[in-house]
């Protein structure tokens, strides 16, 4: 009977430890809560060698801005050329280059189901002002069944933001934080 009481107490202590440690670990997680100190500026999409249309470039750019703002990973999301980015030193620049683009067709998708997918693959780089690459990922986005072709850009933007969330960003140094 006493051994049972001891084991129950041990379990209760274990649960208490886990509960107290978990939030700390989550806070200290991948990005250690430091990302909030960074601001990000989104650059227009570089078409690279692909034949991507301006419509898709603009859609990727706008969706990236929207998704980054929604994610609240950065203290501010700025557009390229935004005057409020002047003098900000803790600024990361998101550069996106299209690696491949396969235009699809909504009608083909509706009729055949298996063909007509729109596929996009981009290389996203987070750089500091001096050009140092902090994070680099190849991300893809596509639309295979339902929805218009531009939905691929929305999926892509979400995947880029997910990749940034999962990545490790360096700590913003005190000199960087000074505005």
């Amino acid at each position, binding site marked *: 009977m006493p051994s049972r009481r001891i084991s129950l107490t041990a379990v209760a202590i274990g649960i208490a430890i886990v509960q107290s440690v978990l939030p700390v670990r989550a806070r200290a997680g991948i990005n250690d809560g430091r990302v909030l100190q960074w601001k990000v500026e989104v650059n*227009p999409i570089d078409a690279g060698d692909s034949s991507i*249309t*301006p*419509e898709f*470039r*603009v*859609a990727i*750019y*706008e*969706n990236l801005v929207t998704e980054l703002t929604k994610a609240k990973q950065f203290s501010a999301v*700025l*557009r*390229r*050329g*935004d*005057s*409020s980015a002047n003098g900000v030193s803790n600024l990361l620049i998101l550069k996106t280059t299209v690696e491949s683009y396969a235009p699809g*067709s*909504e*009608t083909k998708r*509706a*009729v*055949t*189901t298996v063909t007509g997918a729109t596929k996009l693959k981009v290389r996203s780089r987070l750089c500091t002002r001096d050009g140092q690459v902090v994070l680099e990922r190849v991300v893809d986005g596509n639309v295979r069944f*339902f929805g*218009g*072709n*531009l939905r691929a850009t929305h999926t892509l933007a979400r995947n880029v933001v997910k990749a940034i969330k999962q990545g490790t960003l360096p700590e913003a140094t005190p000199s960087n934080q000074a505005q």
Partner: protein
Amino acid sequence: MTRTKNMCYEGSSKRLFRILLCLVSASRFAPSLIAQDFDQARPASSSPVMRARAILGLDGAANNSMGELSIQDDAFVFSRREGPVVRMPLSAIQGAFLSQEDKQVGGMPMAFGRAATPYGGGRAIGLFAHKKYDFMTLEYFDSNGGFRGTIYQLNKGQGQVLADKLGAKGVHVSGLEIATTKQRLETNNAK
């Protein structure tokens, strides 16, 4: 034996009847939706205001909001029934691009209807329930100097009218306009 044969025939004829019933009802549904879209379309040349859908990127308006596009003085104006009018100075526009794309009509209800139609009837509907739209993409700088882009969806033919108007105001337009100009030149040369 003959009885079972008759039953088989009855079964297959019933199934055939059901398939036909589904297809007929679906085909009745599809043209009505297309017709609704055509009703919304206005003659491009006669009206200076064009109905358009702001697909994304328009500051001060939700994505996919319907409204009317016009060029007033030196501003590109998108007005809606509800909500403020969005004005964009033409001088801020860096470039405009015109493209054309095929889209399924009817939206989500139609998509569910297609998916629910048995024996591949949905695919047959998908073959006919589509329509071409013009897409006008604008790249511009906002009041803070930030780069922005918006995409408008217009009825077929209206994009070219808008592109011509923008071109006349000194905005650099590319895309479909170039192709059509080339076609015009080729046809002129052929004559």
